[in-house]
């Protein structure tokens, strides 16, 4: 039953998240951490980190969450439910590309969704930040990571590995 609910949430989230993997985080946090308590804030952050350091899209973090909830079958089902909506929607859009491309409904709705998800993402950083930023060192790591990714071309993978090293040395 948990597994069914889990898959359904992933299916819905992946049908709605326009503009990249990060957009799904506010929804996943709300459902998995706050509503069902399947994960703690720290575990959610760890899953994001795994999604970030592995090749491919952030979506693989769902495999980590699925594994935590139900083992291997959970991980596999997580990936199927995450990618199924993509396959369905993208093949339909490819087929009717020119209709879709000209669609005022699609474009004007996206214009509203895109800024809104930025606000949602900023909001989800608050509970995650209060969990992980607990002293001067963690605060420093967060600032360093923000600066490195926002203002330089350093790959986030290296930032996360670097933060792990700093954690091992100072925390």
């Amino acid at each position: 039953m948990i597994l069914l609910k889990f898959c359904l949430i992933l299916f819905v989230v992946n049908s709605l998240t326009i503009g990249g993997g990060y957009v799904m985080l506010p929804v996943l946090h709300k459902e998995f951490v706050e509503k069902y308590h399947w994960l703690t804030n720290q575990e959610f952050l760890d899953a994001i980190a795994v999604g970030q350091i592995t090749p491919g899209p952030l979506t693989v973090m769902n495999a980590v969450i699925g594994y935590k909830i139900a083992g291997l079958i959970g991980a596999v089902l997580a990936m199927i439910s995450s990618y199924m909506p993509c396959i369905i929607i993208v093949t339909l859009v490819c087929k009717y590309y020119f209709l879709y491309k000209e669609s005022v409904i699609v474009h004007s709705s996206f214009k509203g969704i895109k800024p809104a998800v930025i606000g949602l993402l900023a909001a989800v950083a608050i509970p995650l930040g209060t969990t992980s930023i607990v002293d001067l060192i963690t605060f420093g790591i967060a600032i360093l990571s923000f600066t490195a990714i926002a203002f330089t071309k350093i790959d986030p993978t290296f930032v996360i590995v670097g933060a792990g090293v700093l954690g091992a040395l100072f925390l």
Partner: protein
Amino acid sequence: MKNVPLRNIFLVFLKIGTFAFGGVYSMLTFFERELVEKRKWLTHDEYIDSVAVGQMTPGPPIVNTGICIGYNLKQLRGAIVTTIGQAFTGTVLAILLAIFYIKTKGNVLIGSIMKGIGAAVVGLLLSIVYKMAKNTVRDYKTAVFAITAFFALAVFKLNPIGLILASGILGFVVFRRTTE
């Protein structure tokens, strides 16, 4: 579009998914070099259309670009094969890391490493917010959408799925005329 065997499609996307480090833009360049220039499976224009589809559909844009290319090459079978190819390596590694993570729970050193990483992930999220906002929030209307969504979730704890749907409907109402 050329007639390419399904197995070759799978192998190329497996390669792409395995070396897919370094963000969206480096990935898109990698795609173009591999599929357009080297293998000539599709033309530059077909590629640009696939990238556009990837960006305006829900889910990870890179995977969706791949699905679109796969679909154009071999219909639904192509779409499924490109998805599995792209997701395979990352998923296997993620599962291995998850097993390792659960096994080492309670280990002090791993705990410290994960604390450092957790703080970095928060910085990463804020930098993504910053970058996305720089590209998307361009006038007072888009700013109102972003700020309203922020407070609706942070303060009023409204459901994010509902908020995304609502922002889509309001987007249609507000931006309908300027989009035509």
